[in-house]
């Protein structure tokens, strides 16, 4: 569950977010797409608790947050495995083992430090780390950047699997094409013709109640995406059972979704 209620934020005297209210129930995904500089990243940072909003409330249903930062945020002197293990819970040996599996899954040599990696590898390391904690709240900032088709599919599969597990996903991007493979509510933030703040109202929540801009999930690519290798098990040692997920057939939580179906208003000064 991700809840932002009437959140506003100004940066250096310039209002970035005038008022944003949004709810992403467990197992659902909300995608904000729009031009750069309209406060998408700030909104995610507020949701993650990294930036304090000037006004409004933020509530996350779980402390288990996976945040894919827009830029690479990697510990430069730790290898791929070390970087993943850094954010995991549990005893050191177990963290190392799980981190090694995630590194392998994303095609990353375990001991190579980020400065010696290619840009694509660094991006994949950020991704692997985001999903390795099995988050209940997923915040993805430009997740498709620097990824080729194959890794975009892996990313979509991981996101779909996280949603299947009950994770609430808030995603911001300017590349909406890859989203066809994901069951998510798409909210386009457009530039206002008058140059003033942009107002977007959109219902968020249950699958039945999608706004006009949403992308219906369940294209042929879902099948491909879910064919990815099984995830490494969680740290507790609980067996990793993953039913073949099909986001399109996933009903989504209706009742709480309806109740939480609030108006999202984003003033986006450009």
């Amino acid at each position, binding site marked *: 569950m991700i809840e932002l209620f009437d959140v506003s934020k100004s940066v250096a005297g310039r209002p970035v977010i005038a008022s944003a209210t949004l709810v992403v129930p467990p197992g659902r995904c909300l995608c904000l797409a729009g031009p750069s500089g309209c406060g998408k990243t700030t909104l995610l940072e507020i949701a993650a608790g*990294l930036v304090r909003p000037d006004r409004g409330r933020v509530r996350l249903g779980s402390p288990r947050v996976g945040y894919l930062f827009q830029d690479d945020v990697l510990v430069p002197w730790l290898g791929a495995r070390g970087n993943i293990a850094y954010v995991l819970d549990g005893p050191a040996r177990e963290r190392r083992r799980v981190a090694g599996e995630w590194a392998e899954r994303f095609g990353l040599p375990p001991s190579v*430090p980020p400065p010696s990696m290619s840009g694509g590898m660094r991006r994949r390391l950020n991704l692997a780390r985001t999903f390795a904690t099995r988050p209940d709240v997923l915040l993805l900032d430009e997740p498709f950047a620097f990824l080729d088709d194959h890794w975009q599919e892996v990313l979509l599969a991981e996101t779909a699997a996280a949603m299947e597990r009950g994770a609430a996903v808030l995603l911001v991007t300017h590349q909406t094409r890859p989203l066809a493979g994901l069951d998510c509510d798409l909210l386009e933030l457009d530039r206002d013709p008058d140059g003033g703040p942009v107002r977007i109202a959109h219902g968020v929540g249950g699958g039945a109640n999608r706004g006009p801009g949403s992308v219906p999930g369940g294209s042929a690519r879902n099948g491909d995406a879910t064919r990815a290798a099984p995830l490494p098990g969680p740290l507790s040692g609980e067996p990793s059972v993953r039913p073949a997920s099909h986001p399109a057939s996933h009903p989504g939580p209706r009742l709480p979704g309806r109740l939480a179906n609030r108006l999202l208003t984003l003033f986006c000064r450009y």
Partner: protein
Amino acid sequence: MRLRSLLPHVVSIGLLLGAWTLASRALGQGLVPPPATVLPVLGSLLASPPAWAELGLTLARGGLALALALGAALVLGVPAGRSATAIRLLGPLVAALQSCPPVLWISLVMVWAGTGETVPLAVVFATVFPPLFANVAQGCMAIDPRLFALSRTYRVPRARVLARVVLPGVVPYLLAGLSYALSAAWKVAAVAEYLASGEGVGARLYWAYRMLDMPGLFAWALVLVTVGVGLEMGLVARLRRMAARFSPTTRRSA
């Protein structure tokens, strides 16, 4: 290759011995005892356990004070470096402390604590702590703040943040500070002993001077210089190389 690396030492020692012999000829053996007189004295010093004890004592004092300063610099420098306000507020104070000459500390500590063990320890500490503190704080400040944001988002335990992010980030700065502090600690320990202690290399130097035991004075001076050079060329040079290996250009992720 081996010969080539020895050459600078041979040249330096040769020049030193030459100038020393000339000075001895010019000023008289009473004022400047020639190497031929001093080296046997040095030899007998090196053969006597008490002399080694004095040397060990000075090294131990310098080392202990350095270790204490290092610990204090880490404990105080890391939190200070995390706060831009603290750095800004403490900057002038650290600069002032750094500009205090060791003799000031020596006089103060002698008044407060009397002569003895405290003086060399306290004075070495007071001399090397400010630069070490400043370096640790600076190193901490240079760590990418996004790594702390990452740690907060993923609720990484504090101890792990310290061990995996803060300390490795501080290391190059710490090594640079340590290479200065190491040679400073040795010199300042000797000065403190000279002025305020009955034992140690500095104190032996003082007594040789008081007794006008010129060969002894020269012999102890040689000990002082040799250990100083050994520290500089052995440890300090190694620390500098390590610091260069950890330098930000090789550590920064794009």
